[in-house]
C-alpha cells in the first residue's frame, strides 16, 4: 500500500457520500419530472441528513445504535477496499457485514413492522447476493482475476463481452437502491404496508447514519458497474448515466411487487441470463 492508494482511499471516503447525496438529489428531481412535478432541490438529501443529525435521539434499544454504526463502518471499509483496488469478492463479503447488521438492528427491536422488514431485507439479500457473486465470477472469466487492479487493466470494455451479466448486475443495483419493483423491505417515501420496514424504528441521527451508509453502498455498486467500461472515462460515464436513468424509469413504471415474485423472477431471469452469457463466452472461446 503506497501513498497514492492511501490518498485515493481518503478521497473516496470523503467524496462518496457527497456523490451519493447528489445522486440521490438528482434522482429525486428526475423522478419528480417523470411524475410531472417540479421536484425538490438537488441538495435536498443533504438537508434531510443534516436535519436528522440534529434531531433528538430516540431508540428502542442500544443495539440499534451499534448496528447502525457497524453498517456505516463496513460500507466505508468496502468502499475503501475498492479504492485500494483489492479483491471484488472480498469487498462484496465486507459489504455483507453492513447489510447483515442492518437486519440485526431491525430484528433487535420488538416492533412487528421492523421485524417483517428485516425478514424481507434478508430475502432481498438472498436474492441479490448470488447474482453479484455470479457477476464477479463472470468478470473473472473474462479478465482472469478478481482483483480490481487487473480488471481495470483489461484492455476491452467488459460490457461488450458480458452485456447480459451487466443486466443481472442492474437487478442487484435496483434492489440495493430500494427502487420499484424491489422496494420491498423499505422504500424511500414510506407509503408501504410495513411503514418503512427495516428503517421503521430508526430515527434522528441513527437514520442519518443509515442514509449515509446507504450512499456509500450506492456509490460502491455504481463503482462496480463502472468496471464494465474501464477503457474510457466517457464510456464509463455514459454507461452509468444510462443505467441510472433506466433505474429511475423502471422505478416509475412499476409497482412494488411481492418478495415471492422477486425471489423467483430475479433468480430465474438472473441465472438464465448469466448462464446464457457464459455459454456465449464458451462458444466464442472455441
Amino acid at each position, binding site marked *: 500500500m503506497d501513498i497514492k492508494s492511501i490518498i485515493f482511499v481518503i478521497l473516496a471516503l470523503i467524496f462518496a457520500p457527497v456523490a451519493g447525496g447528489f445522486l440521490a438529489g438528482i434522482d*429525486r428531481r428526475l423522478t*419528480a419530472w417523470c*411524475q*410531472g*412535478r*417540479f*421536484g*425538490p*432541490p438537488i441538495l*435536498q438529501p*443533504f*438537508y*434531510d*441528513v*443534516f*436535519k436528522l*443529525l*440534529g*434531531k*433528538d*435521539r*430516540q431508540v428502542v434499544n442500544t443495539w440499534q445504535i451499534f448496528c447502525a454504526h457497524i453498517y456505516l463502518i463496513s460500507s466505508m471499509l468496502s468502499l475503501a477496499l475498492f479504492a485500494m483496488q483489492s479483491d471484488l469478492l472480498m469487498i462484496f463479503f465486507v459489504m455483507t457485514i453492513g447489510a447483515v447488521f442492518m437486519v440485526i438492528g431491525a430484528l433487535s427491536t420488538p416492533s412487528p413492522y421492523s421485524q417483517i422488514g428485516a425478514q424481507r431485507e434478508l430475502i432481498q439479500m438472498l436474492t441479490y447476493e448470488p447474482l453479484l457473486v455470479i457477476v464477479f465470477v463472470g468478470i473473472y472469466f473474462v479478465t482472469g482475476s478478481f482483483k480490481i487492479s487487473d480488471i481495470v487493466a483489461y484492455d476491452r470494455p467488459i460490457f461488450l463481452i458480458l452485456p447480459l451479466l451487466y443486466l443481472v448486475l442492474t437487478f442487484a443495483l435496483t434492489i440495493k437502491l430500494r427502487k420499484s419493483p424491489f422496494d420491498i423491505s423499505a422504500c424511500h*417515501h*414510506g*407509503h408501504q404496508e410495513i*411503514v*418503512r420496514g427495516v*428503517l*421503521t*424504528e*430508526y*430515527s*434522528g441521527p441513527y*437514520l442519518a447514519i443509515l442514509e449515509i451508509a446507504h450512499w456509500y453502498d450506492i456509490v460502491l455498486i455504481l463503482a462496480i458497474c463502472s468496471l464494465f467500461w474501464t477503457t474510457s472515462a466517457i464510456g464509463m460515464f455514459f454507461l452509468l448515466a444510462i443505467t441510472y436513468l433506466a433505474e429511475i424509469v423502471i422505478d416509475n413504471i412499476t409497482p412494488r411487487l411481492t418478495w415471492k415474485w422477486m425471489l423467483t423472477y430475479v433468480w430465474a431471469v438472473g441465472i438464465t441470463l448469466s448462464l446464457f452469457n457464459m455459454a456465449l463466452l464458451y462458444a466464442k472461446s472455441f
Partner: protein
Amino acid sequence: MGFFTKLLETSRVKSPWIVHFDCGSCNGCDIEILACLTPIYDVERFGILNIGNPKHADILIVSGTVNHRNAKVLRNVYDQMPEPRAVIAIGACGTSGGIFREAYNVVGGVDKVIPVDVYVPGCPAKPEAIIDGVVLALGKLKEQRTAKDTDSLAAELHQAREFYANRADRQVVE
C-alpha cells in the same frame, strides 16, 4: 460552531417531514393534504415528505375532530415524535371541532389533547392554506426544544373528557 448551528437551522427549515394523522375527519381535509403532495402543488419542492412514521417526522398534521378513542392514539403518535416537532391542526374540525362540536363522541379540537402550533381553518382547508400552515410551522422547528412538559395538558384533557362524559344534552334517567 456558528456555521453548524446555521446549517442545522437551514436543514430543519428545508426538510420538514410530515406525518399525517386522520383523527376523525370527514376525509375532506385528508384528501387536501394528499393533494398537496401531488404535481399541482408538489410540496416536495420544500423538502416536505409525507413520511407516515412519527419516529421520522418533524411535523404532525392532524385533521378532524378528536374523539375519545383516537385521542389516545393521537397522544401516542405525538409522543413518538422526536424533538424538535410541530403540530398543525387542519380544518374546522381539527381546530375547534367544527360542525360536530356538539356530537356526543367529540372531545373537540386537536388542542384539547396535544399542543398545537398552527391552526389552519377551512372546511376543508385548501391545499394552499395547508402549505401556508406548514411554512408557518417551520418557524417552530427552527428552535431546538427539549421534551416539553406536557403534564398540564394531560390534566386538561382529563378535564375535557370528564366534561364531555357528563354533559347533559341527553336526559338519562335511571
